[in-house]
C-alpha cells in the first residue's frame, strides 16, 4: 500500500505540474498576443485552444513524422535507430509470410462487419420507429452490449463459442450442425470459422449503439415528408427508399467512416482470444507483437503506416462517393 501511494504521488505531482504549466502557457499566450497588438478576442481564443494545440504537436504531429522516420530504420528501442532505407517495406511486401494473411483477415473482417452492422441497425431502428410501445426500454436493451469493455465482450463470446458440444452456441445449434458433421464447429479454434466468430461478436457489440444513433437520425426526419408521400400514394418500400434512406444518409455516412476506422484497427478483442496455432492474426495485434514483443519498432512502424494508408484510402473513397449519395438538407435548400 505505501508503495502504491508513492506511485500515485509521483504521477499526481507530474499531473499537477503539467496542469500548472499549461495554464501558465495559456495566460502567457493571452498576455503576449495582446502586447503584440492582437485583438483581445483573438488572443483569448488562441489562449484557450493552447492545450489542444500543444497536445496536437506533442502527441500527433511529432509522432506522425517520427513514426514515418522509424519506418525507414532498424530500431530496437535500446540502440539508436539505424536507417535501412526501404528494407522494412520490402520485408512487408515480399519477405514476411505472416503479413499478407493478416491483411486479408483484417480486410475480410472489416468488409463483413461494417455493412452487416449497418444493415442490422438500420432495420432495427426502422422497426423501433414504428410507434412501438416501451421505446425507452427497447433502446436500453439494445444499447446494453455496447457498454461492456471490448475485452469482456471477447471473453464472453469465447465462452459462448466454446468448441465443445456443451458450448452454448454449439448446443443451441446442434440440430443444424449435426446434419453436416458429427464434430461440433470449432469457432475461434477453427481457422476457417474464426472470422465468422469475430463478425458475430462485433455485431453483438456495436449493433445496439448504432441502432440508437440511427434512431436519433430517424427522429430528425420531418414528419410532413412522409405525409406528403402517403398522399402521393407511395408504399412502405418507396418511402424507405426515397425518404428514409436519403434523409438518413449523413448519419449512415458517419457510421460507415467510424465503422471502417474501428474495424481495421480492431485490437482488444483478438488479444483476448487465443487463435489456433498457425492462424493469421489481426493487423493491429501483429503490429503489437512485432513492436512490443519482438522489439522491431522499425518494422512495426512500417506496418502502422501501411494501416494508416489503408484507412486513409478507404475513408477518402467513402468521402468521394458521398457526394453521390449523402444528402444534406442545407445544400438542397440553396
Amino acid at each position: 500500500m505505501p508503495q502504491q501511494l508513492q506511485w500515485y504521488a509521483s504521477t499526481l505531482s507530474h499531473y499537477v505540474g503539467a496542469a500548472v504549466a499549461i495554464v501558465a502557457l495559456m495566460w502567457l499566450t493571452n498576455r503576449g498576443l495582446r502586447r503584440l497588438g492582437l485583438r483581445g478576442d483573438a488572443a483569448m481564443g488562441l489562449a484557450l485552444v493552447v492545450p489542444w494545440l500543444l497536445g496536437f504537436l506533442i502527441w500527433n504531429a511529432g509522432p506522425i513524422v517520427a513514426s514515418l522516420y522509424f519506418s525507414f530504420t532498424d530500431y530496437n528501442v535500446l540502440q539508436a535507430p539505424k536507417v535501412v532505407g526501404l528494407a522494412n517495406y520490402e520485408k512487408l511486401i515480399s519477405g514476411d509470410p505472416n503479413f499478407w494473411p493478416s491483411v486479408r483477415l483484417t480486410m475480410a473482417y472489416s468488409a463483413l462487419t461494417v455493412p452487416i452492422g449497418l444493415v442490422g441497425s438500420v432495420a432495427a431502428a426502422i422497426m423501433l420507429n414504428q410507434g412501438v410501445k416501451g421505446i425507452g426500454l427497447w433502446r436500453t436493451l439494445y444499447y446494453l452490449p455496447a457498454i461492456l469493455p471490448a475485452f469482456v465482450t471477447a471473453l464472453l463470446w469465447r465462452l459462448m463459442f466454446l468448441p465443445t458440444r456443451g458450448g452454448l452456441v454449439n448446443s443451441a445449434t446442434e440440430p443444424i450442425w449435426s446434419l453436416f458433421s458429427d464434430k461440433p464447429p470449432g469457432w475461434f479454434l477453427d481457422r476457417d470459422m474464426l472470422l465468422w466468430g469475430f463478425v458475430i461478436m462485433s455485431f453483438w457489440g456495436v449493433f445496439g449503439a448504432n441502432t440508437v444513433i440511427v434512431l436519433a437520425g430517424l427522429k430528425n426526419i420531418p414528419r410532413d415528408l412522409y405525409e406528403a408521400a402517403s398522399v402521393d400514394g407511395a408504399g412502405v418500400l418507396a418511402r424507405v427508399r426515397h425518404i428514409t434512406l436519403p434523409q438518413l444518409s449523413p448519419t449512415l455516412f458517419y457510421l460507415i467512416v467510424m465503422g471502417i476506422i474501428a474495424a481495421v484497427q480492431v485490437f482488444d478483442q483478438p488479444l483476448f482470444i487465443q487463435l489456433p496455432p498457425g492462424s493469421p492474426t489481426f493487423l493491429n495485434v501483429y503490429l503489437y507483437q512485432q513492436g512490443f514483443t519482438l522489439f522491431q519498432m522499425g518494422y512495426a512502424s512500417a506496418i502502422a503506416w501501411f494501416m494508416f494508408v489503408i484507412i486513409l484510402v478507404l475513408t477518402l473513397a467513402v468521402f468521394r462517393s458521398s457526394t453521390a449519395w449523402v444528402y444534406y438538407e442545407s445544400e438542397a435548400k440553396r
Partner: protein
Amino acid sequence: MTFREATAEQVGGAAVLVGSTRQGRGGLRKQLRLLPVYILLALGGTFALVPFIWMLSTSLKSQAQLFVFPPEWIPDPVLWSNYAEAWNALPFSAMLMNTIFVTALAMFGELASASLVAYGFARFHFPFRNALFVLMLSTMMLPWVVTLIPSFIIWRVLGQINTYDPLTVGSLFAWGPFYIFLLRQFFQTVSREIEEAAIVDGANSMQVFWHVMLPLVKPVLLAVAVLSFQGNWNNFRGALIYLQQPLERFTMPLGLQFFQASLSNEAPRWHYMMAMSGLMALPIIVLFFLAQRQFIEGIQLGGVKG
C-alpha cells in the same frame, strides 16, 4: 430561440420522441398490426441479452458444472463464493485502487481541457480558427497505431514507462477530439445575449465560462463525463503498453488479461473469469442505468450533428 429550445431541437431525442410515440399509438388495431415488428424486436432483444445472462450463470457455477450438456441456466448450487475466490486470486483490490486513480485523473483532465478548448473554438474569432478546427476533427481519423510507437518513446525518454503518467497526464492536453467537437456544438447554441449581459455586469471571459457557459451546457458535460469514464475505466490498450509487473501496479483491465492468460492453460476456469468480467463491468452497468440518457445522447450527438 432560447437555449432550452435549441437543445431540445439538437438532442432530437427526448422531446421529439415523446411526440412521435403519442402519435404512433393508434389503438389496439395498430398495435396488432405491429405484431411482427414486436416479434422481430424481441428476437433482437434476446440476442442482446442472452450473453449477459450466460455470463451471470457461468460465474455462479462450479468447475464440474461448466461443461455439462445440455447447458444449465440456473446452477445448483449457486456458488456466490466464486466472486470472492476470483477476487482474491490476484491482488485485485490494489488494481481497483489503481483503476480508480487513473480514471479520476484522466476524466478530470479530459473534461477540463476539452471544455476550455471547445469554448475557445465556439466563442472567439482568431486567425486560422476554422483550419485548426478541421485539423482537430481530422485527428479523429488518425489511427492510434501511427502515433503509438513515438508516444511510447517519448514516455520512455521521460522515464515514465511503468508509471501512471502515460494514462493520465496526456488527458490534460485535450486528447479527445470527439469531446471537444460535442461541447463546441453546444456552446454555439448558447445565446450571445446571456453572455453579453454577464460581460456588461463586469465578468471577464473566464468568469463567463465558469458561471454562465458551463452551467448551461451541463447536460452535454454529463454525457461527455459518462463517455469519458467508460473510456478510461476500460482503457486496456494503454495499460497493456505502459504498465508492467508487479501485479500490484496493474489496472483492472490488464489484471483481467493476466488472469485469463494464467487461468486458461490447463482446465480453463471460466467461472472465475466470468465472475471477474462481471465485476469489472459492474460499475459501467450501474452507471448506465443511472445515466442512460447521457450515455445514449452522447453517442447520438456525434451521428446526428456530425
